[in-house]
């Protein structure tokens, strides 16, 4: 079992959700984060003072999957989240090992509990 953590542009979330569903990945958890990468900062002005927002709004998707689904999930995300032009700031995917997974409702554990 793996935990896939993807950090992507917010506006791509709807498309990613669809892509995941198409690959039969129905369960995931989303949170709002601020990311600092290569992307050009947002330039703001407040009362005559310029300031750059370098921590940009991103969305973090966590998907716990069984090993055989890792590639499908990664592909699904990459296919839509990479954008058309190769602009910077499209994001990253990290894959971490999961040792155990428990479905709270039933107490079920292991690979069958993940979906």
């Amino acid at each position, binding site marked *: 079992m793996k935990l896939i953590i993807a950090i992507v542009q*917010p*506006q791509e*979330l*709807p498309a990613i959700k669809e892509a995941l569903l198409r690959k039969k990945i129905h369960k995931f958890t*989303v949170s*709002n984060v601020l990311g600092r990468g290569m992307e050009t900062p*947002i*330039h*703001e*002005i*407040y009362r005559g003072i310029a300031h750059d927002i370098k921590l940009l*709004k991103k*969305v973090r998707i966590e998907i716990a999957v069984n090993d055989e689904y890792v590639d499908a999930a990664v592909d699904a995300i990459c296919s839509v989240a990479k954008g058309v032009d190769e602009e910077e700031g499209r994001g990253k995917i990290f894959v971490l090992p999961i040792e155990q997974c428990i479905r709270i409702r039933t107490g079920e554990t292991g690979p069958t509990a993940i979906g």
Partner: protein
Amino acid sequence: MKKIFLIMAMILLSQTVLFASSETAINAYAIDNMFLFLAAVLVLFMQSGFAMLEAGLNRSKNVVNILFKNFMDMSLGVILYYAIGYSLMYGNSYLGGWFGFAGFGISSVPPTPAAGALNPQVDWLFQVAFAATAATIVSGSVAGRMQFKSYLIYSIIITGLVYPISGFWKWGGGWLDALGFYDFAGSIVVHSVGGFAGLAGALVLGPRIGRFSRNGQVNAIPGHNLALAALGVFILWIGWYGFNPGSQLAITGADNTNAVMLIATNTTLAAAAGAVFSMLLAWSLYKKPDLTMALNGALAGLVGITANCDSVTNNEAIIIGLVAGILVVLGIKLLDNLKIDDPVGAWPVHGLCGIWGGIATGIFGPYSLTSQIIGSVVIPIWAFGTMYALFTFLKSLGILRVSEEDELRGLDISEHGEEAYSGFQIFTAE
């Protein structure tokens, strides 16, 4: 001797009498001008109502932009309506009542004090508040996708030219007035102008990204702050007590006093009926009582009663409000079906119910239904046509709509480099 004494006494006395009489006139002058001044303040207060309502019904990423547009409608509107608009609207008639003009600025010559005589300064103040209202209605329809500088151009043109010209047709004594068309406080002259200008904007701009899916599905883009939206409607309702009662333009003289009081009550009843019945209709259609529908319903009732609040009975006012409340729900549905994206429902409220107000004046009031229909069709066409042309022209220059990226990011960042809710964590995705 005695006769001379008597005659002298009488002269003295008659002068005292005249003095008393003219003092009374001077009091009446003070009252009427104060009344109009306070009414103008209430109507100007409506600007904040529009700002809160429109901001509240849009996404948080466009709030600075909307507030700024409303604020400039008021500020630019004041400058433009001072420079030229007022003169175009209340000038001498030319071209058979299609056009008026009376020089630049406002007269500073006060009238002879008398009941009903208005100082031109306060008359202008009251009128400019109406002009700003017509202008600011549009900002909601074009929210979330229009370039700020184009909006300023639009705002200048509507308060400087388009609104004053059609305003002249009726209130300046132009051809519609001659025809017998009646519009007491502006269901048509003010609200339908704004509503149809907004419709033109919404059409030329096209919908916001994501509002209608390619598969034909209609998606909701919920407002970000319904507390502000509700506050806006409460303020608008209050401001309407300047809009309608103030349009009597005088309160002294028993007829004026009585008219003002009737108008105030009719305005209240129509607003309430609009709110209650739009809530009930939306509830029965969608199974849940929807606050934004009820808020729009109250505004719809207010718009509907604006043309006729002085000429209908209390019960008729309730009926007019009730119908408006129903129309606004249907109008919102209609726009969705036609895939027109009017984020705050400016057309259903001000355009559709404006026309309803104009026609209701013919149905319930003592006015010719034909004239009412003519006026209620011609002015919306004028506003829609001129504004459609303007928006199309701006589009052809490529300065009408922001880029897709800017729209997604929000106009606050892309157009102003300034966020409305700095520090708040806002879902950038749903």
